[in-house]
């Protein structure tokens, strides 16, 4: 991600939900227990040996602080029940976040400090979380936000401003502990939802601001938008991000053509059809192809295209990681 070609293609799972489920942590309580989370990553590092140790802040934490409620199914991702802000006027009533009052943020800071101390020298400590504009759709609700993009653009800007400020307050201690990468999502900006014009008009400036802010602390910035982002990938690269994390439906060779060599690509194995439902051989084949297309001259991290379902078999994760360590040496010769 610093430019230049590494010894081999790096690989990262960019998901904690899968790792926690696989190592027996309940997703509803996992994020409160720093020691158990660190223990689990120690186990993952021992058993799988990926290049990145992922510190994560659950998608529910910041929105919950403001009052959003969730349902936690036995397997699968948390479901938003009631958003904190149901009407525009409720945004003004929110008090800005105070991390000292949030148990899960405190656990995340302790867990992060432990990871940086233990793995900081040998591994990349990769902080991953839902970004401020994704959180905005969880402080309100996606459909309401979509309506406001048309009818109440000023409210959307206020909401984004508030959410970016909250995010910076929550994430600052994590940058200060010295993580290597900050990887955040900006999911509602996806061309699956909104037009590229709207992305440029409402999202882009905030994404750029967040990336510049991450750079002030010396960390690398990666950001993710779900879906087929080809139509906005150039804009995404112009934010100054070091890496763009891309979904499986995006044609990586076209993406590379659009953004040039400066920005790294992170991805883009299909989490559902390959990692969850495929065989290890499918995963190996898809990984080899992804490395060849995305990483022929560096600037590539092999990773899942989006969050990994907790039900994905561990042999498949192992197959992804082993393919990078066995065949990913530069120059690629297979």
């Amino acid at each position, binding site marked *: 991600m610093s430019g230049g070609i590494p010894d081999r293609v790096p690989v990262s799972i960019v998901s904690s939900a899968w790792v926690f489920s696989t190592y027996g942590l309940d997703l509803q309580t996992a994020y409160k227990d720093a020691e158990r989370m660190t223990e689990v990553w120690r186990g993952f590092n021992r058993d799988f040996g990926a290049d990145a140790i992922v510190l994560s802040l659950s998608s529910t934490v910041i929105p919950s602080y403001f009052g959003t409620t969730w349902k936690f199914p036995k397997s699968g991702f948390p479901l938003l*029940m009631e958003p904190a802000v149901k009407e525009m006027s409720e945004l003004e009533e929110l008090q800005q976040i105070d991390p000292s009052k949030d148990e899960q943020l405190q656990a995340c800071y302790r867990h992060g400090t432990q990871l940086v101390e233990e793995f900081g020298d040998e591994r990349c400590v990769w902080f991953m979380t839902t970004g401020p504009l994704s959180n905005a759709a969880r402080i309100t609700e996606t459909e309401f936000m979509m*309506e406001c993009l*048309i009818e109440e653009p000023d409210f959307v800007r206020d909401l984004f401003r508030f959410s970016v400020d909250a995010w910076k307050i929550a994430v600052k201690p994590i940058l200060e502990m010295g993580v290597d990468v900050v990887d955040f999502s900006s999911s509602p900006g996806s061309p699956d939802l909104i037009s590229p014009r709207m992305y440029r008009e409402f999202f882009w400036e905030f994404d750029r601001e967040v990336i510049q802010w991450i750079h002030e602390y010396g960390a690398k910035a990666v950001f993710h938008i779900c879906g087929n982002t080809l139509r906005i990938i150039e804009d995404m690269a112009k934010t100054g991000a070091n890496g763009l994390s891309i979904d499986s439906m995006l044609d990586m060779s076209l993406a590379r053509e659009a953004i040039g060599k400066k920005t790294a690509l992170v991805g883009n194995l299909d989490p559902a059809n390959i990692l969850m439902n495929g065989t290890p051989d499918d995963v190996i084949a898809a990984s080899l192809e992804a490395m060849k297309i995305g990483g022929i001259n560096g600037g590539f991290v092999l990773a899942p295209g989006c969050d990994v379902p907790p039900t994905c078999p561990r042999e498949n994760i192992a197959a992804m990681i082993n393919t990078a360590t066995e065949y990913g040496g530069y120059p690629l010769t297979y």
Partner: protein
Amino acid sequence: MNQSETVSSLVQVIIAGNRKAAPELAKKLLQSGMDAYEIVTAACSPAMERVGELYQEEEYFVPEILMSAKAFEAVMEILKPLLLEAQGQYSGTVILGVCEGDIHTIGKNLVATMLEAAGFKVIDLGKDVPVDRFIDSAVEYDADIIGASALMTTSMIAMEDIVDRAKTKGIRSKIMVGGGPVTQSYADSIGADGYGKDAKEAVDVAKRLMEG
């Protein structure tokens, strides 16, 4: 403005997603003597069909199509009490819902709106719907079609159970599926009767399923 000009304006404001102007124009049409059913077929249906096309042409994205749906719904709010008398004219009954474990309702809501605009009676079960509720409701309403939606791979797998359960129970409803990770080949693999990649296609599929 004469009646046909008002009809074209109504079509335009629904396409533009103006949820304030749309019901006003519908009221005006009612006052001019046009009946509710005719307003649906002459203005609402063609307007929503055009919205579906604009989406497929990538002119419209979710916020735009959502606002058109809101404008349409605002019109339906006024017309619905009057349409109840015309129940016999429904082109079919559809049970619609988002699979259990999933709360992504935007796509499902758009399908519901487009189906209503096309003359279907829609029983909307909402989000996070267990398999049995799809089946029980299909029996209760003697539904022609069950439509199941999912945005997440973890909830999509329930579609297979819906198909299986419907078969075991021997209910007559056809099953159509859709949503982010769902594909035609997935729909085929679980034995669903139809797949729509977006709201417009879902309506086309529903119409086709009604023909047998």
